[in-house]
């Protein structure tokens, strides 16, 4: 059986309905909400502020300290709170993706804290988190070259699909499922982050990049609108 039709009846290159908003956390210096359908992420940015412990300070540049948290009720089976291997890794890759666009040399020896919190998860949480964090950084008045937009591309059986849901991630028939989270910068269209979970022949990778670029451009439009004061539901 081939994967002829998507489980939730979307087109293969269709993104789930997007929600985006900035200023959701008044106490933070900058904050944003970003959601792909049932995957909801909020991000808060604090700083730049003095970095402690001191041995973590870099005299040449500031650092981004990114934490990714999935709330216990965000998934069907209660997620154990606290950092784990997965959340540490996602925090690191998200921080690296964001560091590539932020002007860190401006405030040496400081830290910009980015907190990404997943309120509800249905796959692509890191992508929603990165999108929210990029908006929150801009909203916090951080000096940066451009934004980043993130999307997950998958290969389900032999089809390239955009913005996976959990059931697609777990698809086992035919060639099975491959998940490729992808982050692109908004203006220069450079790749800020790319991961791969599964198998894909090199010959099909070009299709993945094309699909990802198309989706990221669409996502950026939403991020831009939200930052300009619109509340997108």
């Amino acid at each position, binding site marked *: 059986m081939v994967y002829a039709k998507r489980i939730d009846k979307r087109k293969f290159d269709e993104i789930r309905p997007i929600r985006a908003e900035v200023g959701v956390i008044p106490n933070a210096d*900058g904050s944003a909400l970003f959601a792909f359908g049932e995957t909801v992420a909020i991000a808060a940015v604090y*700083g730049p502020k003095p970095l402690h412990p001191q041995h973590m300070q870099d005299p040449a540049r500031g650092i981004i300290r990114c934490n990714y948290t999935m709330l216990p009720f965000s998934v069907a089976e209660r997620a154990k709170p606290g950092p784990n291997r997965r959340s540490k890794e996602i925090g690191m890759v998200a921080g690296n993706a964001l560091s590539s666009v932020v002007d860190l040399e401006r405030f040496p020896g400081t830290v910009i804290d980015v907190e990404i919190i997943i309120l509800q998860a249905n796959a692509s949480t890191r992508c929603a988190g990165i999108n929210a964090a990029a908006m929150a950084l801009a909203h916090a*008045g951080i000096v940066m*070259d*451009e934004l980043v937009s993130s999307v997950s591309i998958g290969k389900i059986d032999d089809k390239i699909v955009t913005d996976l849901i959990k059931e697609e991630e777990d698809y086992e028939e035919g060639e099975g499922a491959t998940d490729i989270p992808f982050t692109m910068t908004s203006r220069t269209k450079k790749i800020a982050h790319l991961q791969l979970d599964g198998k894909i022949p090199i010959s099909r990778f070009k299709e993945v990049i094309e699909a990802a670029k198309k989706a990221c451009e669409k996502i950026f439009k939403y991020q831009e609108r939200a930052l300009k004061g619109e509340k997108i539901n």
Partner: protein
Amino acid sequence: MIIKIGAEGESERKQERKLVIPGEVIVSGEEYLPGDFTKKENNEIIANRYGLAEISRRVVKIIPISGVFEPRRGNTIIGRVEDITFNGWVVDIGGPYSSFLPVSECPRFINKNNLAEFADIGDIISAKILNVKKSGIDLTLKSKGLGKVEGGRLVKINSHKVPRIIGKEGSMINMIKNKTKTEIIVGQNGYIWIKGDLEKENLAEEAIKIIVNEASSDGLTERIEKFLEKNLIK
């Protein structure tokens, strides 16, 4: 979104400022020059920060509307004593770095063996930024009206909203001071010290919160005046 700044704009004529996001092309053309928080690439002026873009003659700059306080030399600030060292005080002024006030920048006699006598941890001082160096920020009290402030409360707002709190030539802040009969000192770092009767302090703080939330609207001074009058009668 286009925001018209009337009351507190520096220029006489109403200027249109456009909200821009990082990476956005503000204008293109060879004649334009990049100002604060912008860069020029292939004859396009690109925003590097979220804020209001303003084009004055050929220079394009961005006026930040969010973000932490960026200390500049000569700023008058309010700070809270964080720590005492052998020769001065470490003062929290918000923003990326904490600052240092050496004893030598204090205009009156201080007992060097007991600095806490003048200002203890947690005390609020009003000071001026002497200089901003790579190694840190130095403060001074050697100017009129600076020093430790007694009592009162500290309200923290975003430093970019300070011009709105002060208003044109101090119109807003003076109005609040007169109506509520409180003493108010506004630091350029967004720390505001208020002292007066408890009720009046509350009212002044509430008025400040309203100004912060409605910073970009017109006729704010009149509305705040009405708000204060309504609540003072009660």
